[in-house]
């Protein structure tokens, strides 16, 4: 096999458990020419705000950024579908010379009248600041004219990493918080932050909490509504999922409104149960909440266990590689894979922090490769070296796995199947099972070769 080289400047962002004292570099701007799997600041903002279904999402810039994010995610809405359309000011050459403010104002005017959104988000793309557009001024003017919030999102692609995009989105979103009435909000109430309702996941989670007797004031931003965000400051607790997308929001709400927050993950049995128990514990003054929670968890777990055991029979001992956007998802996936008897041989993320990687390191077996901001060549090198049977990742990772004859589970924002919640654990197991046990791999040349090598090794 031709050895795949690792760039010198990337070596500090790759760690193999056991070989040396733990140290990994992260949080860096991606290395030029390394083919990072990350996107940009704009992508971070778009990911966070996208599911708000009754808002207008106008992308200010040339056409590409809007075209590539049109109906890109499986974030479901129970009502309006405005978020699934793609709106762009579509700047052309003369706008770059003379400025795009007039087009921005005209676009907002036209689109707000046509679609009657509850609010509008205006995403700045790379060139907007450079051509000197005063986006904030145009937004203020249109907000006044139209009587809805028109919020600039400072998401110029080059101004940092995807994480900075999360922050820009939270800054815009936070301007809505506190503008609505908190009437009718129970003291037993939460906001669910960082849950995007992919395949209806937020609905499942909301149902669990409501059954516990907890009111869900808003979900940010899955099946999101502007009015819910506006009154979200009336909730007693924020429950924050994901490695960081909405943590900025939780911090701001804590500081301004004194709302405490806890972290949660809804992937896998352990973490899903913990997400419910932690909320129940927070409302411990109401003892019935904890009792109900126990009942829910028992009921849900016993409903899925028989099939999980059956699937585990086929999957036990298989090796998995994980490469996802945020490290928190990776924590949950490692635990979820344990229920299937699978070991993790590679784990990495686009945006993990040092503490995240330390946690991953503790969770993994010796020899597991840990990667920050990896590229296709690194991922290929290690899935082959570690003889993975399954790769969990997104669209850009999928063909890498398939070419090498490795099963794949989509765990991105584009998927249509809910993987969160107890029921989601079963979907996850089925997904993994469907790919890993497919007969097609017997024809994959790389797997045949790996099989021969293994036999030679044993002999």
């Amino acid at each position, binding site marked *: 096999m031709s050895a795949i*080289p690792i760039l010198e400047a990337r070596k500090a962002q790759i760690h193999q458990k056991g070989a040396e004292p733990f140290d990994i570099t992260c949080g860096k701007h991606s290395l030029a*020419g390394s083919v990072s799997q990350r996107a940009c600041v704009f992508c971070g903002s778009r990911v966070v705000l996208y599911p708000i279904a009754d808002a207008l999402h106008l992308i200010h810039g040339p056409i*590409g950024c809007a075209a590539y994010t049109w109906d890109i995610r499986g974030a479901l809405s129970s009502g309006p579908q405005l978020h699934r359309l793609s709106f762009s000011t*579509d700047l052309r050459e003369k706008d770059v010379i003379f400025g795009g403010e007039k087009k921005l104002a*005209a676009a907002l005017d036209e689109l707000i009248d046509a679609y009657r959104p509850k609010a509008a988000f205006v995403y700045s793309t*790379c060139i907007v600041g450079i051509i000197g557009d005063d986006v904030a001024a145009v937004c203020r003017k249109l907000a006044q004219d139209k009587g809805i919030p028109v919020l600039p999102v400072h998401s110029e692609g080059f101004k940092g990493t995807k994480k900075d995009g999360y922050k820009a989105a939270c800054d815009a979103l936070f301007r809505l918080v506190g503008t609505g009435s908190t009437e009718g909000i129970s003291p037993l109430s939460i906001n669910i932050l960082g849950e995007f309702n992919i395949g209806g996941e937020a609905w499942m989670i909301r149902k669990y909490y409501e059954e516990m007797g907890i009111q869900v004031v808003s979900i940010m931003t899955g099946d999101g509504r502007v009015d819910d965000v506006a009154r979200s400051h009336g909730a007693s607790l924020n429950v924050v999922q994901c490695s960081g997308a909405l943590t900025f929001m939780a911090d701001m709400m804590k500081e301004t409104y004194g709302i405490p927050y806890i972290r949660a993950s809804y992937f896998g049995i352990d973490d899903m149960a913990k997400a419910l128990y932690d909320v129940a514990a927070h409302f411990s003054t109401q003892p019935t909440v904890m009792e109900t929670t126990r009942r829910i968890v028992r009921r849900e777990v016993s409903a899925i266990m028989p099939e999980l055991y059956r699937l585990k029979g086929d999957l036990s001992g298989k090796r998995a590689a994980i490469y996802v956007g945020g490290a928190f998802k990776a924590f949950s996936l490692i635990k979820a894979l344990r229920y299937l008897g699978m070991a993790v041989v590679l784990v990495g993320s686009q945006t993990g922090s040092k503490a995240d990687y330390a946690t991953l390191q503790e969770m993994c077996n010796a020899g597991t490769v840990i990667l920050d901001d990896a590229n296709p060549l690194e991922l290929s090198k290690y899935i*082959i070296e570690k003889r993975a049977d399954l790769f969990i990742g997104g669209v850009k990772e999928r063909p890498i796995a398939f070419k090498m004859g490795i099963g794949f589970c989509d765990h991105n924002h584009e998927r249509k199947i809910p993987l969160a919640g107890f029921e989601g654990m079963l979907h996850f197991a089925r997904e993994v099972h469907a790919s890993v046990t497919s007969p097609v791999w017997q024809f994959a040349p790389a797997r045949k070769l790996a099989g021969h090598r293994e036999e030679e090794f044993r002999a």
Partner: protein
Amino acid sequence: MRSVKQTAPYTATQNACNLCAPLGAALVFKGIANALPLLHGSQGCSTYIRRYMISHFKEPLDIACSNFGEDTAIFGGGANLKLALDNIRRQYHPELIGIATTCLSETIGDDVPMFIQAYKAAFQNACRDEQLPALVHVATPSYQGTHMEGFHGAVRALIQTLAGREAAEGPPAMNLFPGMVSPADLRHLKEIVIDFGLEATVVPDYSDTLNGPLWTEYQRIPEGGTPVNALRRAGAGVASLECGLLLAAEKETAGTWLATQFDVPLHRQGLPIGISQSDRLFDTLAAVSGKAIPQKYTDQRGRLLDALVDGHKHLSGVRVAIFGEEDLVAGLAAFCGELGIFPVLCATGGGRGRFADTVRKVMPDYCRDQMQILEDVDFVTIEKKLAEMDGEVDLLIGHSKGYTMSRRLGKPLIRVGFPVHDRVDGSRLLHLGYRGAQQLFDRIANTLIQVKQERNEIGYTYF
């Protein structure tokens, strides 16, 4: 005959019917052997474009990026470009790096040709025992034109940068600039040219790089593509053929460059979709090679015509709306005209002001005056027009971004071109030549029969 242009008065673009220029350029560079595309701009440009193309081609699709940060936008992208080139060389050992700019690097005024000169000079001073990859630059600001301008611009840049008259061995080579077609189309075109006893230098040729088999060993850059050496010999080609009716009206293309610099005879025609444009392709190849059209293709043509006659009643008078890239739409519209299908609406997100005239010229008289021809339009505009023409359209032909429209209108969509994000066979769709026409005809006829059959209360089993 009405044509609508979106430029005045200004309206926002809603659900664009085009993509940005760097995507087209990246696709072209993916079709060069042992080459890597590099986008000079923000990380998101390469990642979004990769994701978009992977969803169609379902292949690993590495595109590097010079990854601008805030400093880069202030001080210029020279240092980042250099670093990116260094790292690409170290990781991929490519023979060619195709550098496409983005709106960001163009807006801050980066002088990429100068950066490349400086890089070459520094390289020559430093490492003499290593060969520098060919560096090809194309300006692709996303605020200018669509992905088609990026595509044709990159083809031109490859030829302008590399083409010479290095002596070729083997059979006489013909330069083929097929336009943005599918891997299956490229394979078919190569087969045809080779069957005429010619060597084909197809630019670009992503038939293997973006539609290859499973791998035994990991391939840093997938095998296949136009050999860089073949590009260097393009000036010695016996002829060039450029496909695309709108492209044929462009003054500066790869083909015109080879014609003016190296006197390579240039043949221009539409995409060989349907009978007359395919006939033209075969006639040109017969003239260039001095050989008769191989029997295999005469047979294909014969079977196609036989099928057209057998099925003509299913198609006669059917009204379609066609949308997508301008040259593809023009080609499909002409083919519809040959089938007795009436293209009541032809729309493109590009066009450069010449779309309406071009389409009009290829249409038979009977439908020419009743067509809506829209250029520089988005899907919301197209759908609005179709809604106004309520009941006048039976079928849509275009890429898969027209699906939601097709669903709302309750009209079937025949998927063609790029992107096909909601079916498995985007790479394998064949549009060109007699075989491509056969496939298109079969799909259109079967779809129409299926609609009739499903709507029929009795459920006939013969049609």
